[in-house]
C-alpha cells in the first residue's frame, strides 16, 4: 500500500492491547472484588468500544496517511493479564474475543476482534497466580491454571515469524511470571537467566540463517522499564529488569512490548540499560479493565519503511476509543525493511 508519509510506505499495522482482565466470576462487582483480590474484572462496554474502534482504524489510517487502499490490522498482541482470576471460562472468552468469531451477547451485539492466528499473547501474573502464589502452591495438583491457559494459548517462549515488506518480523513471547513464590512479590515478575540465554542463542542462529533483515519484538507482561517522570513502583516492576534489558539489547532486539502497569508510555531505552544498542520499549495500558483510574488505552504501531509511528488510543469515558497522541521513532538500528 502506498502512503504519502515522510517515513515512506506503510508496511505493517500491529495493535497492542494489554490487561484485558476477562472475569465472569466477579463481573459487575468491582468494589467487592477489588477488596478481595485487588483487581477489577473486564467491562463489557469497553470491549464493544474496542471492537468498534478496530472497525474504524483502517478508515482512519487511510484518511490520515492518504493510502490508496484501506490497510488491515495485521496482528494483535495481548501482553498478559488476559484474565483476572485465571478462570477457565475467562480464558475461553478472551480467546473468543481476540481470535474467534464475534461472540458476546447471544441476542445482542456480536463483539470480537476476529484475529484468528494473528493474535499473539503472553501470560500475566493474573493468568498464573493461582498456581504461583506460595500459599496456594499445594493447589496446583488440584487445579493447574497453566493448563487452562495452555488449552488456548501456546507455552512460552513462543516464537512467531511474519513477513512484512521484505523483512522478517520475529515475535518472541516470554513468560515473565517465573520466580513468583511469595505473596509479597505476587505482582512482580522475573525472566530466568537460562531462558534469556536460550532466546539469545536461538536468535543468533536464526539471524545467521536468514537472508532478510530480522526485526525482533519481545512480548512480556511485566514492565522492565519506567520513564523518569513516572513513579517507580518497586512492588510491580520486573525483578531483574536491568538484567533483562541489557540481555535484550545485547541480542539486538528492536522492541519490547508489555503491560502490567495500567498506564501507557513509550521510550527509547537509555544507556547503559540499552547496552550500546537501541531498544524501543512500549506499555499499552489496560484496554478493558473496569474502573481504571488512569484511563483505558491501547496502541497501534505503524511500521513504515523508514520509521515507526505509535498511535495511542484512549477511552473517552462515554462511547469511544479515540486517537489522542502520535509518536514517531526512526529506526535506530536501520530500517527493518532493509538488510544491514
Amino acid at each position, binding site marked *: 500500500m502506498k502512503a504519502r508519509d515522510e517515513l515512506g510506505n506503510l508496511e505493517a499495522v500491529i495493535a497492542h492491547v494489554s490487561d484485558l482482565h476477562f472475569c465472569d466470576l466477579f463481573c459487575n462487582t468491582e468494589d467487592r472484588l477489588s477488596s478481595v483480590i485487588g483487581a477489577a474484572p473486564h467491562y463489557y462496554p469497553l470491549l*464493544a468500544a474496542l471492537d468498534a474502534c478496530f472497525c474504524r482504524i483502517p478508515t482512519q489510517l487511510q484518511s490520515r496517511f492518504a493510502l490508496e487502499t484501506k490497510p488491515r490490522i495485521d496482528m494483535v498482541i495481548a501482553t498478559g493479564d488476559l484474565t483476572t482470576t485465571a478462570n477457565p471460562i475467562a480464558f475461553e472468552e478472551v480467546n473468543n474475543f481476540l481470535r474467534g468469531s464475534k461472540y458476546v*451477547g447471544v441476542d*445482542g451485539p456480536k463483539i470480537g476482534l476476529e484475529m484468528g492466528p494473528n493474535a499473539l499473547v503472553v501470560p500475566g501474573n493474573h493468568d498464573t497466580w493461582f498456581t504461583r502464589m506460595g500459599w496456594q502452591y499445594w493447589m496446583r495438583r488440584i487445579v493447574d491454571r497453566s493448563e487452562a491457559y495452555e488449552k488456548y494459548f501456546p507455552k512460552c517462549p513462543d516464537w512467531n515469524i511474519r513477513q512484512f515488506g521484505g523483512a522478517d518480523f520475529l515475535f518472541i513471547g516470554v513468560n515473565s511470571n517465573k520466580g513468583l513464590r511469595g505473596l509479597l512479590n505476587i505482582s512482580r515478575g522475573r525472566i530466568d537467566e537460562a531462558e534469556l540465554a536460550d532466546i539469545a542463542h536461538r536468535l543468533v542462529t536464526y539471524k545467521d540463517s536468514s537472508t532478510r533483515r530480522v526485526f525482533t519484538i519481545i512480548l512480556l507482561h511485566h514492565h522492565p522499564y519506567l520513564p523518569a517522570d513516572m513513579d517507580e513502583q518497586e512492588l510491580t516492576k520486573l525483578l531483574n529488569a536491568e538484567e533483562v534489558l541489557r540481555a535484550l539489547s545485547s541480542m539486538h532486539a528492536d522492541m519490547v512490548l508489555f503491560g502490567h502497569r495500567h498506564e501507557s508510555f513509550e521510550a527509547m531505552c537509555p544507556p547503559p540499560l540499552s547496552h550500546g544498542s537501541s531498544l524501543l520499549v512500549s506499555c499499552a495500558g489496560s484496554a478493558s479493565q473496569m474502573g481504571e483510574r488512569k484511563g483505558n488505552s491501547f496502541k497501534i504501531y505503524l511500521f513504515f519503511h523508514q520509521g515507526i509511528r505509535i498511535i495511542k488510543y484512549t477511552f473517552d469515558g462515554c462511547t469511544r476509543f479515540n486517537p489522542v497522541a502520535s509518536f514517531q521513532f526512526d529506526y535506530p538500528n536501520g530500517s527493518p525493511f532493509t538488510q544491514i
Partner: protein
Amino acid sequence: MKRITIDDLVGKIAMKAGVSEDLARVGTLCIGVGIDHALAETGVAGEVPIKTTGAFLLPNLTREGLITMVMGGGPFTRLQAEQVVRSAQRYLVEAIKEDPSVEVENLGLFQVPPGTVDIGPDSPLLFQPFSFHAIP
C-alpha cells in the same frame, strides 16, 4: 435545536426506570456504546434513516441488542435493563416532538425529515452520528 446532555438522560432514566443515578449513568453509557458499535460495524459515518418507534435503533441494532448491552455493563435485572432502554427512547421521542432537531451529547443529531408535518408513532427520522476523531 434542542440539546440533550448525558446528565439529562441519566436524570430522566433514573426517574422513569426507577434505578439509582449511578446505574442510570451506566445504562446511558451502555446505550451510547451500543449505538456507536453498531455504527462502526456497518461502516456508517453519515446520515442513517430510523423511525420514532425505533429511536436509538439502527438497521443492525435491535432493542434486544441494546438490552443485552445494558445488562452486560452493570448489575441490572432484565426488567431494569428493558426500562432503561424504554425510558431513553421515550425521552428522545418526546424531545423530537418538541423540536424537529435534537442533538444528543456524545452521540449525534436526530432530525425530522423535511416535509414531515406530524410526528406519529411510526414516523421516519434521520440520525447523523458525530464524526470520529482524526489521527493526530
